[in-house]
């Protein structure tokens, strides 16, 4: 009996995807159970003055009188079909309510990621090449400080600096009229994007620097140098590709981190995305919206981590052969 001639990488990917689904399943149970404690949705809709009869009727309609397990299956089954229920506050389907907000947030995260990832790779690599020189030392301190600052502190300080108090050059809020996208207000995008870039770049730059230093000290880079290759070729052909491996992991984690960071940052700039929507839903106890957004953000997290694991394996020959 010979093993089928399939690359072992597929087995690895299959296992990771399976594990991702298991995690998502557990996450859905956690979200469902946690939101059970947030009070009675029927009462939240009808208010304090509701009669017992109308409450009972609405509970019936919302399937609240069924066993928890049935409720869970109804809810999770609906999610799989793209039906996340009705918002308690807006009396609209959750999917209609958050559709535009998902686009707005994705746009913000993608620009922030598109700027911060190349920037941090450049800063990290350059700092590694100029190790212990003034650029490296300065970057080490600057990234240390920005990595420690909470995102909303960075956001508020930027607003004070550029919008309201010191300078008055940029708007303090992002205004997205209904039917328009955030791209229609480029000036309003500058500060939220900058906040997220400042929140993410330090992390990736620090990891990139460490990983580049490790590669630069490796035998094969030494070998390439001893062969007499020009330093430029050593760096771009031998060092950089190998240093990017661990950085993939960090980039994915940071995109996932952006998905969490937008909650506070969107609130700072009153940006109409899923972050501020989640904040409002939690504030108003709008349970179906909380459930949908929590699953969305957690799903993004799991997917990005999965991609990072697979990408790391693909670019790292040592790990690939170990499968």
């Amino acid at each position, binding site marked *: 009996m010979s093993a089928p001639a399939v690359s072992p990488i597929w087995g690895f990917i299959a296992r990771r995807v399976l594990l991702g689904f298991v*995690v998502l399943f557990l996450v859905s149970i956690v979200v469902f159970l946690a939101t059970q404690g947030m009070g009675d949705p029927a009462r939240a809709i009808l208010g304090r003055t509701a009669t017992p009869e109308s409450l009972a009727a609405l509970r019936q309609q919302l399937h609240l009188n069924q066993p928890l397990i049935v409720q869970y299956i109804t809810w999770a089954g609906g999610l799989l079909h793209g039906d996340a229920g009705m918002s308690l506050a807006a009396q609209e389907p959750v999917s209609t309510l958050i559709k535009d907000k998902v686009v707005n947030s994705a746009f913000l995260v993608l620009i922030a990621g598109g700027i911060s990832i190349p920037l941090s790779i450049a800063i990290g690599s350059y700092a590694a090449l100029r190790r*212990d020189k003034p650029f490296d030392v300065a970057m080490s301190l600057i990234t240390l400080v920005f990595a420690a600052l909470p995102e909303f502190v960075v956001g508020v300080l930027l607003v004070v600096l550029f919008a309201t108090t010191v300078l008055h050059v940029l708007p303090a809020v992002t205004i997205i009229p209904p039917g328009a996208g955030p791209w229609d207000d480029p000036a309003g995008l500058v500060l939220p994007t900058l906040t997220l870039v400042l929140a993410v770049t330090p992390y990736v730059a620090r990891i990139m620097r460490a990983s580049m230093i490790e590669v630069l000290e490796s035998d094969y880079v030494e070998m390439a140098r001893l062969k007499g290759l020009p330093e430029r070729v050593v760096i771009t052909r031998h060092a950089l590709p190998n240093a990017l491996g661990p950085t993939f992991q960090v980039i994915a984690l940071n995109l996932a981190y952006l998905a969490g960071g937008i909650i506070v940052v969107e609130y700072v700039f009153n940006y109409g995305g899923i972050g501020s929507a989640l904040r409002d839903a939690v504030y108003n106890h709008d349970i179906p919206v909380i459930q949908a957004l*929590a699953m969305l953000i957690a799903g993004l997290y799991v997917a990005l981590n999965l991609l990072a694991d697979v990408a790391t394996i693909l670019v790292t020959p040592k790990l690939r052969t170990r499968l």
Partner: protein
Amino acid sequence: MSVYNPLVTNEPPLVQPKKPSGVLRNALTLGRTRVGVALLILIAGIAVLGPLFAPHGPQEYLGLLPNKGPAPGALFGTDHIGQDVWSRFLDGGREILLLAAAATVLGLAIGIAIGLFAAYTKGAVDDVLMRGMDVILAFPAIMLALVAIATLGPSFWMVILAVGLTNVPRVARVTRAAAQPIVERDFVGAAEAIGVPRYKILFGEILPNVLSPLMVEGSLRLTYSIGLIAGLAFLGFTPNPNGADWGVMIQENYIALSVQPWGVVLPVLAIALLTMATGMIGDGIARAAAGIDRLRSAE
């Protein structure tokens, strides 16, 4: 899904764990640690001693207009309902420091216990515990805290519990990773052979050997806890919505930022300096623990 420590370069740890006291002493020779400690003393000093020097009560109305700029009797003006910004600032640090410290201690205690237990027990228990940590890590920390607080209300203990819980998985992973090689060492086997109870092996034999990475992780967790608690208050979730608290002050006065910036600027700067301080101290300890700077210059 692997963990990473953004404030720490990913150098491999030395084989022989260093004594925690020696690590702290080495950390204090680094400039960044000293600056961090000085900043921490300054901000913690304001938080602890501030209330003694506050000219007015935190909830005292001055009889001035709300959102008024600096005026006689109100050094930094008044806030959104006419209370003294300076007095509220001096009064507003204790709560956030206390909450953050408690959440960090809670996260460390539970995380260390889980990490040690997982590393020592191995096998299926280890797998189940660590996959459980993965599930918690599948949520951004702020979302986890938001959902927990929305469920049970933003009481004092709920904030500590929610923020502490977000610290647990990361602490557990760091502890487990550091403890795994220690578990294989002979002295652990020797302790088992003479019948030392399991909890004594975990906390008496293994824990002392993993303290250095935990000190680094602890300061990192403290940094995040401060940011998370202040962030939650900024979003409007706080145990004490009318009280003086730096996060609450930012939230209340943010709307009037363009006319009266001080109500926002003072607490934002305090939180910024505080997180910078704990971040710098953590980085200093990390460098001292890994011997990064020292080893490199000796090469």
